[in-house]
């Protein structure tokens, strides 16, 4: 009898906890799900009177779509640079005994975790100013690349370490040059690693607010993260039709990427897609 009571209490406690967790995590997201389709979007989350008119408001805004394009440019530029530089470095560090390699790797890892955007915003701002990289997308790409590279090199080196060298040796026996081996043997083998790093970089840059906020002045160049912020902080009553649809459109790629990664890799790499 006592056992049954205890078991019942345990089940009730469990159900309460799970409902509380569900409520806590779902509550802020409700607005994002409903407001974009609501004919009269308010601040309160409520079941919508269905409409797609809000998306027309979005299309008519001069900054909305341009900012998403800017986000794509920043993310693609950074991802290309990070993947290219990290792949070359990781391969060389994995396969060739360069003097001081382990110290170098350790320092890279340490530096990348202590020099963060918030801690380094002052010198980064001044550096960009002196290099005439203020208000330049290339400047943002370079700064973000510098910050993301150490972690990317680590991910990729780990990956390369785990691939067998026998293919490379075989290719060499058949007289392939080192560069041919890299292009035709190594690149295909480490492709999943490259894809992981690319997705990870895109996710990082897509959500980043601080660097473009610091370094870009012209709203025509601002990415979605910064434009989103100006939508609700600058000037008068926020346009909820615009904000809600824009939030949804801006969030979708991240969700799609997450689904892709989790389906493909089972989301095994913790802390991978973000941070």
């Amino acid at each position, binding site marked *: 009898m006592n056992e049954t009571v205890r078991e019942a209490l345990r089940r009730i406690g469990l159900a309460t906890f799970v409902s509380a967790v569900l409520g806590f*995590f*779902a509550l802020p997201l409700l607005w994002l799900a409903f407001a974009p389709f609501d004919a009269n979007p308010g601040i309160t989350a409520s079941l919508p009177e269905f409409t797609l008119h809000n998306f027309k408001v979005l299309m008519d805004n001069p900054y909305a779509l341009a900012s998403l394009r800017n986000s794509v440019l920043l993310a693609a530029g950074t991802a290309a640079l990070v993947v290219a530089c990290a792949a070359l470095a990781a391969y060389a560090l994995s396969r060739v005994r*360069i003097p001081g390699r382990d110290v170098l790797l350790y320092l890279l890892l340490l530096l990348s975790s*202590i020099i963060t*955007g918030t801690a380094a915003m002052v010198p980064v701002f001044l550096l960009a100013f002196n290099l005439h990289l203020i208000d330049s997308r290339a400047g943002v790409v370079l700064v973000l690349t510098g910050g993301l590279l150490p972690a990317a090199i680590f991910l990729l080196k780990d990956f390369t370490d785990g691939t067998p060298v026998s293919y490379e040796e075989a290719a060499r026996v058949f007289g392939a040059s080192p560069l041919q081996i890299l292009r035709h043997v190594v690149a295909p083998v480490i492709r999943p690693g490259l894809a992981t790093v690319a997705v990870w970089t895109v996710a990082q840059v897509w959500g980043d607010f601080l660097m473009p906020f610091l370094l870009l002045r012209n709203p025509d160049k601002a990415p979605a993260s910064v434009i*989103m912020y100006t939508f609700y902080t600058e000037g008068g009553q926020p346009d909820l039709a615009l904000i809600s649809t824009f939030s949804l459109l801006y969030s979708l790629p991240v969700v799609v990427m997450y689904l892709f990664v989790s389906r493909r890799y089972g989301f095994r790499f913790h802390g991978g897609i973000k*941070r």
Partner: protein
Amino acid sequence: MAPPTSPSEARPLAVGRRAGTGDDAAGLGRARAAAFVAPALVLVAVFLVFPAVWTLYLGATDYRLTGIAASDPKFVGADNYRDVLGDGGFHHSLWLTLQFVLGSAVVGQTVLGFAIAWVMRDRTGPLRRLVEGLVLLAWILPSSVIAFLWIALLDRDDGTLNALLGTPGTAWLLDHPMACIVVFNVWRGTAFSMMLYGAALGNVPPSHLETARLAGASTWQTLRDAVFPRVRGHVLTSLLLVSLWTFNDFTPFLITAGGPDRRSEVLSVYVYRTALGDGRLGFGAAVALVMILVNLVIALLYLRALRGRKEAAA
């Protein structure tokens, strides 16, 4: 330099382990290998290492964003550091940061993340997918979107929270700004702890849990005696990681901008306001150096814990 970058927890660093084969299977040669590493190193040197070193110098000048000191900054030695350490605003901000890190990361995210992982450990099916999906969604959505969702949730007049609680007119963000960003950050970051502890709990042998159950152990006793010894290493490293991330998080700026009246001005926001808001770049750089030093301590502890864990496993 974007959001805090750190290597993944599941595939930690290769330092300390024999890395790769090191026998140059493709016949690259040292010179070419060095050339391969060079572009990455140059970018990291210019855009990551140099700013950090420069912070040291900037913190010792009276550099300002505008005015005379902008064109001709003077060397002022340790003055900024003395000013920072004696600044009431800095002490206040440090205290708020401590609350923020301890409250939201060390206690909030860790306890909630572990609890969810524990409750979900042997469940499968739609409920688990729903819970994990929502928690992850909070983690992966862009911060400026999330920030607005929370502003809307906590809005004084029409906020969903006030509608639910029946407390119209309660200005949560004005009355309890710190509590708001602490709860917000628990919501935002629990996913990492949940996934990490989920993986760690998978390493606890089911036979141990079964034995504990048969012995009539309570949940608390099971956790203490059968589970905790197995996940201790994970707890330590994840605590350090979430502390590091939370300490450097700039998202509170998007929600409260440090206000009202600087009551939620954590260090990241404080640096921004003093350096780029007030234009005191030298002073801001001195604060930034303090942040870098704190990061350094946490990161060194982290690397040490990680190495200890590896040795324990070997």
